[in-house]
């Protein structure tokens, strides 16, 4: 009997020791791991590479890959970069899954993306817990910076807090919307859309403009009931939609009903292929194809990735450049080693005095872009022309 108990005790002690030894031998967690800078530093890219907005995601990915290829080709850059792709399809649930896989990849030192504000909200806690810096070139919700993700989340595009007043000012100063006129604002019941509508509405009301706030499902295909409510006092219909083809449908149905109000889309509808029946679109980045100084870069990009580009892509080019700069600094400070913490610290301080976006890039203390502004495009015969 005692012999049996002794045997069990020995096995138990042995098992405990084995577990302790295994735990001691386990490599550091990805959040604190350091990796050698002799290999390319891995940067995750979260973008909607497939799915309904894959044209946006592909463009974002291509510009990031292009920046990395240029960075790596430059012999002066001793620290090389490598992009690890993660497809989110612009869905918060998929963004969480991709974030989880990035978080557990101990070689990964920073993230470009996610693309959408909802995705940032979903993936942010995972990326933050993993100690990763994550920088978006398209997520514009105001609340993403200056809150729980402070020090971890960055963006090189202006937020909706800039877009709202910009659009409202343009409507009153250029489109002739006067005090007493009406602007119809139709959100698509998604948080991006309702958030932006909540900013533009009060900005217009403050100028004495009457706001007719409407709301319709993002899945709706019949807007005729809503369009029937556009009276002659409605000068502008503002559509902060997330799906460009929905805005196109709205504009087409408005034309059929003979409504003359200007259709004004937000950055979510910026798509020169799928939103051509409207009149104006505001967007967080300039069209780099129209900036003379960017001609050579755009030509090189088009050679590497034929098929054209949209303004969604270029901010990701700049983010990849910033990661290159930050990785170099972090590797120098870490004497050939880099960690997520050192990358994050260096990224927060990274800046570029000249970028293809036509403006210098520097992050504020909250991770927002300093001195950011929105751009407005006019749609003429289906073509987008920069007007502001």
């Amino acid at each position, binding site marked *: 009997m005692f012999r049996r108990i002794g045997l069990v005790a020995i096995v138990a002690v042995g098992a405990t020791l084995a577990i302790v030894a295994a735990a001691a031998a386990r490599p550091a967690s990805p959040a604190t791991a350091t990796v050698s800078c002799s290999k390319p530093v891995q940067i995750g890219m979260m973008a909607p590479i497939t799915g309904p907005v894959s044209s946006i995601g592909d463009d974002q990915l291509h510009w990031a890959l292009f920046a990395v290829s240029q960075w790596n080709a430059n012999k002066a850059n001793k620290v090389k970069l490598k992009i690890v792709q993660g497809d989110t399809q612009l869905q918060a649930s998929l963004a969480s899954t991709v974030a989880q896989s990035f978080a557990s990849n101990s070689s990964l030192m920073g993230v470009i993306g996610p693309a959408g504000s909802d995705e940032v909200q979903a993936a942010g806690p995972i990326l933050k817990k993993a100690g990763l810096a994550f920088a978006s070139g398209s997520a514009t919700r105001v609340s993403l910076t200056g809150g729980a993700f402070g020090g971890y989340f960055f963006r090189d595009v202006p937020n909706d807090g800039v877009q709202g007043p910009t659009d409202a000012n343009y409507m009153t100063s250029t489109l002739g919307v006067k005090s007493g006129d009406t602007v119809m604002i139709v959100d698509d019941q998604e948080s991006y859309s309702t958030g932006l509508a909540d900013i533009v509405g009060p900005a217009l009301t403050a100028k004495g403009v009457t706001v007719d706030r409407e709301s319709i499902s993002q899945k709706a295909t019949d807007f*005729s009931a809503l369009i029937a409510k556009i009276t002659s006092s409605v000068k502008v219909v503002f559509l902060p939609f997330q799906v460009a083809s929905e805005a196109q449908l709205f504009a087409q149905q408005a034309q059929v009903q003979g409504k003359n109000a200007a259709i004004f889309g937000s950055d979510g509808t910026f798509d020169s292929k799928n939103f051509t029946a409207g009149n104006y679109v505001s967007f967080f980045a300039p069209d780099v194809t129209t900036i003379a100084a960017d001609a050579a870069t755009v030509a090189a990009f088009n050679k590497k990735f034929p098929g054209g580009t949209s303004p969604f892509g270029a901010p990701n080019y700049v983010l990849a450049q910033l990661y290159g700069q930050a990785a170099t600094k972090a590797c120098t400070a870490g004497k050939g080693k880099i960690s997520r913490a050192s990358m994050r610290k260096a990224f927060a301080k990274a800046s570029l005095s000249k970028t293809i976006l036509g403006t210098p890039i520097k992050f504020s203390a909250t991770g927002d872009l300093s001195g950011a502004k929105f751009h407005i495009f006019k749609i003429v015969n289906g073509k987008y022309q920069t007007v502001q």
Partner: protein
Amino acid sequence: MNWNLFLTELVSGVTHGSVYALIALGYSMVYGVLKLLNFAHGDIYMVGSYIGFGLITVFGGAQTLSTSVWVLLPLMFICAMLGGGLLGVLIERFAYRRLRNAPRIAPLITALGVSFFLENAALLVLGAQYQSYNSFSWKGGELWREGLMLPAGVHLAVAQIVVVVGAVVLMVFLTLFVQRTQLGKAMRATSFDREAAAMMGIDVDRVIVATFFIGSALAGAAGVFNGLAYQQVWPYMGFQAGLYAFIAAVVGGIGNLPGAVVGGLVIGLAQSLSIGYISSTFSDAIVFAVLIAVMIVRPSGLLGRAAVQKV
């Protein structure tokens, strides 16, 4: 009273309601015969819509149609109805037939499974992107430019007329078919009592296959009508339309064909009038409120008959 607003909402409601009614008819037919809620029905509508879109592409695309609109439209309807009908028959044969005598929950779950299968298959094969019929561009937009001028300056476009008239024609044909033909009578008998119908020499299997074919063909046609009027086609479009059509079938009295038509129109009108006169934000809530109100007042639906069980 703003008559322009009222008539526009009315046109919108009837157009939308016609599409819902066509889908609801399929729900009701299958439920009437098998007591099965065929949740895959909305996805057959999606497939029908894609078939129509495929034909537009075959004929050069919306901007550069190589044939007349009046040749293309019948072709689209025939192909979508045949495609939808055949798909319905295949679904019945491979997914539901073996479960005919199983507890009700089994075919119900299978129907959901078939629905997900069709959605994901479409996603895989056709991609997740929204596609557009872009009927505004067909031959210079004649379907939307031409039409009738109603009072108060309301324009009723040819596309809307095609949807409403087409749906009415199909409903009339269905009614005549069910009332006047032998197969239609067999359907009614099977719906009334499947076992008794079989004992009277009715080939119940044949009746069920025919029911699935006709119901699914109507869903295919509804898919084309929807594309014509509302343009967008995407793999998940069947879910929402199917949900509204299901509500329409329940409001009208599930299993009752005229009820499905009435239910479709009620739901379409409730949606558009609530957007026009109450609030666009709450239009879905209002539609469901209509459903709840009808269920409280008439639990078997507007035209449904309460099932009497002898004990």
